């Protein structure tokens, strides 16, 4: 018996991995658990602030939906109104500090035209992030079969998807800020509405950005053959866990900020 020999009879006596998982992957899971708590606090906090205000009056909202149906050219319609579409909503009392704005009237832009397309752009962003999650998991699967070329291809597609999502978010923020949304004021409703929007989507967006950076590092390592030499592509799986988590958080950001 060597000096280093340890008992392998009991699960927790040492000498083997109790969860049959590598150290790095286990720590990634625990980190994601802690990050899930962070985002839960932000989103539950958002829910609490949101419901300390009443919603927009439903009869008023019905009238707005009748006056401005899906696909209306709002730029043309409110050309002569000061402040355009947003100014009109403020004048009519649809946007006011006393109640929370309906997301369909705030997030109604789409690149390339001025038509009223409520929630369509954020749906597209969701689709982009889900698709990049699929390409990520395909990279993990290719790594399990030690197919270097496939891992490279799917990692590249995932990175492109990440940049597309970040581009969409930058465009949406620019639109939102251009309409007067700031951390300390906004024309849509209570101050906390825009402040929390920037805080939470910004925190998520920064996660996406760091995810893209990590994915680029893994992509370069894959090209250099680092994992081929190591004998396994577990690093791809670990960064994949992070990337899927970012997608998971987006599911709830979408639910809380754009639906509720």
């Amino acid at each position: 018996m060597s000096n280093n020999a340890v008992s392998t009879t009991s699960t927790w006596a040492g000498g083997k991995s109790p969860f049959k998982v590598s150290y790095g992957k286990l720590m990634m899971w625990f980190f994601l658990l802690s990050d899930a708590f962070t985002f839960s606090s932000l989103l539950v906090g958002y829910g609490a602030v949101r419901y300390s205000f009443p919603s927009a009056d439903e009869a008023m909202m019905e009238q707005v939906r009748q006056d401005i149906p899906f696909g209306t050219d709002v730029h043309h319609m409110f050309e002569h109104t000061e402040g355009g579409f947003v100014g009109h909503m403020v004048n009519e009392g649809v946007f006011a500090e006393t109640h929370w704005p309906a997301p369909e009237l705030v997030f109604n832009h789409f690149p390339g035209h001025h038509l009223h397309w409520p929630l369509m752009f954020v749906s597209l962003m969701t689709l982009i992030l889900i698709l990049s999650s699929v390409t990520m998991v395909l990279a993990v699967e290719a790594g399990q079969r030690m197919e270097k070329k496939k891992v490279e291809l799917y990692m590249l597609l995932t990175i492109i998807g990440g940049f597309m999502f970040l581009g969409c978010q930058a465009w949406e923020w620019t639109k939102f800020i251009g309409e007067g949304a700031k951390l300390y004021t906004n024309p849509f409703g209570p101050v906390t509405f825009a402040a929390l929007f920037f805080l939470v989507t910004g925190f998520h967006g920064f996660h996406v950005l760091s995810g893209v950076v990590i994915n680029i590092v893994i992509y370069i390592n894959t090209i250099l053959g680092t994992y081929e030499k190591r004998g396994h592509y577990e690093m791809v799986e670990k960064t994949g866990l992070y990337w899927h988590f970012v997608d998971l958080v987006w599911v709830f950001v979408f639910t809380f900020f754009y639906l509720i």
Partner: protein
Amino acid sequence: MSHHNTPVDIHDEENYDPTVWVPKAHSHGTKGLWKTFWVLLALTIADVILYFTMPPSMGRNVLFIFLGVVKAAFIVYSFMHLTFEHKGLKMSIVLPMIFVVYLIAFMLKEASFWNYLNW
């Protein structure tokens, strides 16, 4: 533990070296992954349709959050492979989520007093 002059077998369960040990990877195919993609897409479309067809209410919010939890479960079990992990790891990740349920219950009770604060 392996001697450092000899090459280390990274999959060796008998002579385990925690700094390099990693279980042998197995592919579970791509069929289930694509199924998850279609489920996520369908539920997101359902979200948007419900938003425009169902009048706003707390019940509708609960439905949206429920659909979100279903989507999250598909992501965690399929994309993140939790379904193929050891039972102990599964429980270590899923059971602590009870704290989030606690936080929601706590806030539902406490936040009703926020109406008395002027902010």
